[in-house]
């Protein structure tokens, strides 16, 4: 697969030269491939937020490089600005960034900054609204009349409207009810499918991660200790526990079974896989 964003020995130090100095990232090599659905996990303060803010040039590395499509994003001012449009970043609780009089105007803020013509802006706003399931009539409402979940959709649409080839979302489902979580994850999936975009989701919900992503990158203590498919990552169950991350409940049950001397594959993480593993163990055919 072809890499789309890479970091090379990326380090970021906050408050350099003061007593409060600390390294948020130390020599991190990270790669995201074109079209993949990637998850980043790490507990609060592990450096994951710092990492994603480097990917679209919001933070400047203290040392090291960030490459987008093979070119350094800090090469020129113009390049940094273009990267911000190519790599869309949705922050945590994005609903707090809304400011316009109408939903339509708020979603069009990004495309307008890109300097597109009115026709193109209109097309993008309507399409983005459709991706996140906003109705036509909502577009003319004030974003401040909407419910929390609706506001979040508007904010996500505001980034999707720039049609970025990489969409990064920091805890997009935090604080939503289960129905809201499913529907937002569905919207993101639709965008991934329709535009063949690279999706990077930051979360600390293992269950959510396990169901949605192709590959997981673990961030801990300013470094990336390991990455791989959910199965590979969850095989590091003990290390994940030590980092305070834990594994999906299903994986924990199977790790425990294995510990009790049952000869079973402990890397399962969905109910379907668990069912198959148990049936296989019992010697019955997988239906």
């Amino acid at each position, binding site marked *: 697969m072809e890499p789309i964003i890479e970091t090379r020995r990326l380090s970021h130090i906050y*408050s350099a030269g003061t007593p409060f100095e600390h390294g948020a990232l130390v020599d991190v090599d990270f790669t995201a491939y074109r079209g993949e659905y990637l998850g980043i996990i790490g507990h609060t303060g592990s450096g994951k937020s710092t990492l994603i*803010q480097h990917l*679209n040039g*919001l933070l400047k590395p203290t040392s090291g490089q960030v490459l987008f499509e093979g070119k350094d994003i800090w090469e020129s001012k113009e390049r940094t*600005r273009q990267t*911000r*449009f190519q790599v*869309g*970043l*949705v*922050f945590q609780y*994005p609903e*707090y*960034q*809304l*400011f316009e009089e109408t939903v339509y105007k708020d979603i069009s*803020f*990004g495309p307008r*900054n*890109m300097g597109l013509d009115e026709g193109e802006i209109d097309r993008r706003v309507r399409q983005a609204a459709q991706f996140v399931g906003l109705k036509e009539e909502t577009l003319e409402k004030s974003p*401040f009349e909407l419910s929390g979940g609706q506001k979040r959709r508007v904010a996500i649409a*505001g*980034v999707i409207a*720039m049609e970025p080839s990489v969409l990064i979302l920091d805890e997009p489902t935090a604080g939503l009810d289960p129905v809201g979580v499913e529907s937002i994850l569905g919207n993101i999936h639709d965008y991934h499918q329709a535009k063949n975009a690279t999706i990077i989701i930051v979360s600390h919900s293992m269950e959510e991660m396990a169901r949605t992503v192709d590959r997981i990158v673990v961030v801990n203590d300013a470094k990336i200790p390991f990455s791989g498919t959910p199965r590979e990552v969850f095989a590091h169950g003990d290390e994940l526990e030590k980092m305070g991350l834990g594994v999906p409940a299903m994986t924990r049950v199977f790790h425990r079974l294995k510990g009790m001397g049952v000869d079973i594959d402990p890397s399962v993480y969905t109910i379907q896989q668990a069912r198959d593993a148990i049936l296989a163990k019992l010697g019955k055919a997988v239906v």
Partner: protein
Amino acid sequence: MALKDITLGQYFPGTTIIHRLDPRVKIIGTIAYIVALFLAKWLVTYAIMLVVLAALIAISKIGVKSILRGMKPILIIVIITGLLNLFYTPGQGEPLVSFWVFTIYPEGVWAACAMVLRIAMLITCTFLLTYTTSPIQLTDALERLMNPLKVIKVPVHELSMMMSIALRFIPTLIEETDKIMSAQKARGADFDSGNLIQKAKALVPLLVPLFISAFRRADELAVAMECRCYHGGEGRTRMRQLKLKGTDIAALILAVVLCVVIGVLGRYGF
């Protein structure tokens, strides 16, 4: 990010004797020191003031570096005051230099040095107060010191409560500003380029969410305070009672002595 580097009366926690002094004593001491500064006249008194300040800084273990860093924003005022004194102090003797409309007398040089030193010492001593006293202690002490004003119906408790809340929320709002700024930059907002009007317009996407979030926080805080039965200062007791200890009284006496000594010496032109 530039926003994070603002030191706004930043408190450096510590356990030195200055940190542990009663905040009321520290406020009175600071005022006494400022009064003494204005009573100081000439070399001897200035030297005493400087030694006292240096000793206080040494005891409090606040790095000279952090004091100098705090000094940066007022550097221009200090320089301008110094220059004005340098050029506009008339003298009796021969002028030192004279060019165009400017003439500099030896008296001017002295006046400029004295004024710059005075302002620098004044600011450093207030830094010493805010660096060694947490905002909570400060407002607490102010409330107690202003207590007599209750007689003339000044809402002392409410004022100090407002002050502590305002102080408490400065870092929160700075963090919030940072976050919203990043979020809008991610959507291509440009806060740095363009002319003045464009720059002012660019602030709308920052200010609207910031105000909304400030109001939301205020609302949440009010509800939280009411849930805990807050109803103003009437009959309210405090968790930390301020009590004067031996060291506090000693510090007060020293402050008064300093004022008197400088006052007397200054009067005789030292």
